[in-house]
Structures are given as C-alpha cells and as structure tokens.
C-alpha cells in the first residue's frame, strides 16, 4: 500500500481577491479539469459562467446541457473519454444528479461535483445558505456506496479543496463532492492562486475494484452500472460475488480513511468544551472561541482558513468578557465524509461537552453523538438561512454548561 502522502501546494502563488464560486472554477482549471457540463442554478451559477470561458481559454470543452441529470451524465462520459471533468449545482440540481453519482460510484469514475448548498426542501430558499444537504451528499443515491465530501469555510478553502477533490477522486477512482454553501460561494476574500497546471497522479491499482481503462486505449473496457467483476462481466445475479463487490467498494474508501481525513483544530490543547463545525459555520464558531479567550489579533488562524477574522470582540470592554470561564476550542471538519471517527475521538477525548452548530435541523450532530461515547454532544441548530453569530454560540454554550454545573 502506498504510504500516506499529500503533495503540498506550491509555496509561491499569486494573491488576488475572488468570489468563492470563481475561486472554485479557477482551481478546477489549475487541477487539470478540461471538461465542464452544467446547468445554471442559484447560488452556483458563477461557476458555470466562469467555466464557460475558462474551459475555452484552457483548451478544454464546455457544454451547457438541458438539465442537471444530463450535466452529471456528460461529465462521466467525458471522463471515460480521458478528460478530467466537473459539474456544479445547488439544491434541486444536486437531487437530480444523485442517479448519476451512484453510477459514478459503481463504475469507479473520478469526477468532481460541486454543490453550493441553498435552503430546501424543493425551491426553498434559492438565495440563502444552508447545510441541509449534509446527509444527501452521503446517502443521496440509492444503494450502499461510500462518498468523499469536502466542506470549505473560506474562499481559500474553496480553491484548495477543489484541487484536493480532483486529487482524491483520481486517487480513489470515485466521485468527490465539494460541499460548499451560499455563504462561501458568494463571499469575496483574499486568496492565493497558482498558475499553470497541477500534475495529478491517476488511480493506484490497489484502490480499484474493477479496473477499466479510459476508452480508446485499446483496452475494450466495459463500463457497467450493474455489478461486475474485474473483467466487466455482470455479476448482479450472483449473491456471493455481488456481496464481495459491494464490500470492496466500501473498503477502498474506509481502509484509507486516514489518507482522506482532514480535520483542523483551534485552541484544543487544553479545552474541555469543543465546538465541532464544518463549512461556513466554522467562521462564527472560531470567532466565538477567540472572543471567549479575549483574542483580538489573528492568532489561531491557519493558512487557508485566515478568513476575514474580526479584530473586534462582540463586547466593548475586554475586561467584561462574560464567557471567559468557558475553556473552549474548535474542531473544524474539512473532510465531512467519510466521517473521521478516530480522528474526532482522539481530538475530543478530554472534552466534557461538544457543541455542533449547524444550519440545519441538527444532522451531523447525530454522527458526532454516535462517535463520542464520553462527551455530552449538543446540537446548536439554526434554520432560515442566516449564519450563527459568535455570541449566539457562546450564549448557548454558557446556558448549557450552567444547567449542568
């Protein structure tokens, strides 16, 4: 098995200001994406707009398809034609793509799908943010399959995680979803970008269940949605073979979870209360931690997650900090799926409380609760499309802690 290795991004890049969606599109070009098919949908439309010109500039191909179903199908088709490919969508469009995501998982097609989340269900809140698709991204298509999903919290992470999504999809030969949301999609921030094209290595044979080569390479590949053996022969009617096929599709991701896991920590060294956040909610969550500690300067910020950290505290005089008694830190989950069980258990082992702020009815918190046996796991949900404020998070934590002590 290959040792864990992640090629670092180049040290020198260009500083610029980009919108999250634009950053995602530019990162895709840098990662070697040369085929984009899409259908316009708020709030992801800027990605298809930028890609319509960027693909041509980069010598790739762009097509606007008749719907999201066709867009997802076209990128899978193009990938077998040897072109690294991506599509981007939101809410209802992501629902339409689920059929093809299942097909890509079974046929082991490396493609990247960007979901800039909006409020749902149905048309819901096209212009507002949410994290309601956290389960759809994992379980959206029918049947059992594994999914890799990355949740960016800043424009820089929109850029970096897009590149990472292409690397992971090629390495494990699987669809990877960039689970962004309206807030990171539409915000503008300073970002470091790179010129040229990144070299991404193709799938390591050890990870591949049914290796089929790209078309027109003389391999006579059979790419099959029905279960198949390593020769592409159908085994869907054979219980034992189908069972082991499904199991290896699962283990190819689960056995390499250490390579996929990406979790950042902030002030967790001696914290006994953790805020576990992902996506745009990690921004107010980190601000809450810093406020409780009375930190004004940008301490604690890390590379890609510098963000526009506010240098002011929510209260005017630092000496009246009402939350200084909370010994709080933050766990920021970047690779939301597969769920990094071991990593989170290790990081939260000394935490009495783990708070999970989410812009949904409280979904990811169930996974955290299942994983952490010794901490009290509490959901801080917020519905309606607005981000939590740092003081909301702190007030909820203080109230909960007070009740128990």
């Amino acid at each position: 098995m290959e040792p864990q290795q992640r090629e670092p991004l180049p040290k020198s890049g260009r500083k610029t200001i980009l919108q999250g969606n634009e950053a995602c599109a530019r990162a895709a070009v840098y990662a070697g994406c040369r085929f984009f098919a899409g259908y316009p949908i708020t709030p992801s439309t800027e990605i298809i707009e930028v890609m319509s010109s960027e693909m041509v500039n980069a010598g790739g191909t762009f097509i606007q398809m008749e719907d999201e179903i066709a867009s997802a199908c076209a990128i899978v088709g193009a990938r077998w034609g040897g072109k690294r490919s991506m599509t981007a969508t939101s809410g209802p469009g992501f629902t339409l793509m689920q059929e093809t995501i299942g097909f890509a998982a079974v046929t082991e097609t490396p493609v990247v799908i960007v979901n800039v989340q909006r409020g749902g269900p149905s048309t819901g809140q096209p212009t507002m943010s949410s994290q309601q698709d956290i389960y759809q991204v994992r379980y959206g298509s029918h049947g059992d399959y594994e999914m890799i999903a990355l949740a960016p919290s800043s424009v820089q992470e929109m850029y970096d995680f897009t590149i990472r999504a292409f690397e992971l999809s090629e390495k494990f030969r699987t669809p990877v979803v960039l689970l962004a949301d309206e807030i990171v999609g539409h915000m503008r921030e300073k970002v470091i970008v790179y010129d040229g094209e990144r070299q991404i290595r193709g799938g390591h044979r050890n990870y591949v269940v049914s290796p089929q080569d790209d078309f027109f390479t003389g391999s006579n590949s059979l790419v099959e949605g029905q279960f198949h053996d390593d020769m592409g022969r159908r085994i869907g009617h054979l219980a034992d073979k189908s069972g082991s096929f499904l199991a290896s599709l699962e283990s190819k991701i689960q056995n390499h979870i250490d390579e996929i896991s990406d979790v950042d920590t902030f002030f967790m060294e001696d914290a006994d209360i953790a805020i576990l956040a992902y996506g745009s909610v990690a921004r107010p969550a980190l601000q809450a931690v810093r406020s409780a500690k009375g930190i004004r300067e940008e301490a604690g910020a890390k590379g890609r997650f510098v963000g526009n950290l506010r240098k002011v505290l929510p209260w005017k005089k630092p000496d009246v900090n009402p939350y200084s008694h909370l010994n709080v830190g933050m766990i920021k989950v970047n690779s939301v799926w597969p769920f990094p069980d071991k990593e989170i258990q290790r990081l939260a082992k000394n935490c009495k409380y783990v708070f999970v702020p989410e812009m949904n009815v409280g979904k990811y918190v169930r996974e955290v609760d299942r994983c952490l046996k010794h901490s009290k796991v509490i959901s801080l949900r917020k519905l309606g499309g607005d981000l939590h404020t740092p003081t909301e998070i702190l007030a909820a934590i203080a109230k909960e802690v007070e009740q128990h002590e």
Partner: protein
Amino acid sequence: MNRLMERYLRLDALPTLFCPGCGNGIVQQAFVTAVDKLGIRDDIACVSGIGCSSWVPCYLDLDVMHTTHGRALAFAQGLKLARPDKKIAVFTGDGDCLAIGGNHFLHACKRNIDLAVIMINNHIYGMTGGQKSPATPQGAATKTSPWGAYDEPIEGADLAICMGATYVARWTTAHPVQLEKSIEAAIKHKGFSFIEVIAQCPTQSGKSVYGDKDPAFIMKKLKENSVIYKEGDHVPAGKIKCGVLHHDNDKTEYIERMETQLRLYAESKAPKTSGEGEQAK
C-alpha cells in the same frame, strides 16, 4: 457461430440474456458487419441505456458504456465532446429514448452532434415484463393497459426529423441487409443520425401487438406491412414507412459549429490591421 461475430463478441459473456426469437441479435449482427466493413473497430465506442436493446453492445468486445435508464445520449455527448476524433454509437429502445430519455433525445437531435443512434423499437417494456411503452400502438393490451392502450404512440423517427437530426432511417428486423447499410451510412454521416429498427419481441409484445408470439410470423408480418419509402411517395395508413427518411448533409455538426464560432470570436477580437481600421472610420 458466424466467424465475424466470433471475432467481435465477448465469448465469456455468453449466452446473451435475449429470449429465443428476439430481434436484437439481428441488429447486433448488422452493427458488427457495418463496423467491420468500415474497419473502425478501434475508433468506435458504444453507449447504451437500460432495457433489452441496451444489452446489445454489452456482448461486443469494444469500449462499451452501459449507463442509466434514458441517459445514454447524455453520457454519449460527454464522451463525444471529450474525443471528437472518434465515432460513438448509441443503443437505445423505445422506452429508454422516447419516455425517460425524451428530453435528452430532443436536445441531442437539435445540437446535431455526431452520434449514430440505433433505437430498437419493440413497442413494449420487454425487460420489466411487458408494460405499455410510448411506442405501443393504440388499443394494444399490455400488462399496464389491460383494456387497450389509450395513448397515441410517439413516432421516434418523425420526432428526430422534426428536431433537426440530419440522418434518419427506419427499418425492421425483416430488412437486415438494408439495416446494415443504413448503420454504415449513419456511422459515416457527420451529424446526428437516428435509425429506428422495428424489432419483434415474441415474449412480451408478440401477442398484444401482432396477435401471435411466433417470431417468424411477426417478421413475415413486418415485411408485408412495410413500404420502402422514396422521397415524395405516399405511404398508405397502417403501413410501416421504411427506408432513409431524411438525409441532410448541409447542416453543420455541433462540434464543428462550436469550433467555427470560437474562431469567429477570436478573429473579431484580434487587433485590426491599419487598412481595415481606416475603412472603419
């Protein structure tokens, strides 16, 4: 086994899942013959959807993508755009192409993208056990239209012509030689080609559509009922209009159009020479 088929089939995948007397084998052989005559075995890939028709390419030793129900054309367009230098054949059925894949079909026709589409029309959902399809004739009793179908059937070939496909033909399995020539022409044609093949499904649509499940009887009936169409001919009602129904070599193919458009745009943005600049003043 036929020597030619032996060279093109994935022998370890046999036997096929087709019923005895199925029309799909005739289409399969016509396709293989056409590919062999054109000598493009390494330069053609097949894409198919779901249904009996979509299993036809899965037994062929070529690059094959057997995709989801109705979406073959969407996958095929992605593949074609990634490899414009290669030929793509799409196998689909009446349900796959005209019902669940209807929208993709309309848009692919209009784009006139270079694909050779073979729609095997057996007038029924055969794989699921004989339910009404968009091509089931009015009045035919099926598992989901036990009192006779109410819906007026959709004519795939007419729809393709109306939506801008540039090579459209219809044959039945009783015309294997003509079918093979048409497939050859469709692959060679640069643009969206659509061939509808009326095929017998003795198991599922034999009784309901033709009154008998004997494949020889159905094929005889297909032959008797078809009229080979030449431009301007009048085809009496109730007859199957066979032949090349539409062939337009003038309409530009999608990828060529895309390239022309990009070139024109680049030229319009290029700095003008001084002479032209003066003229403009």
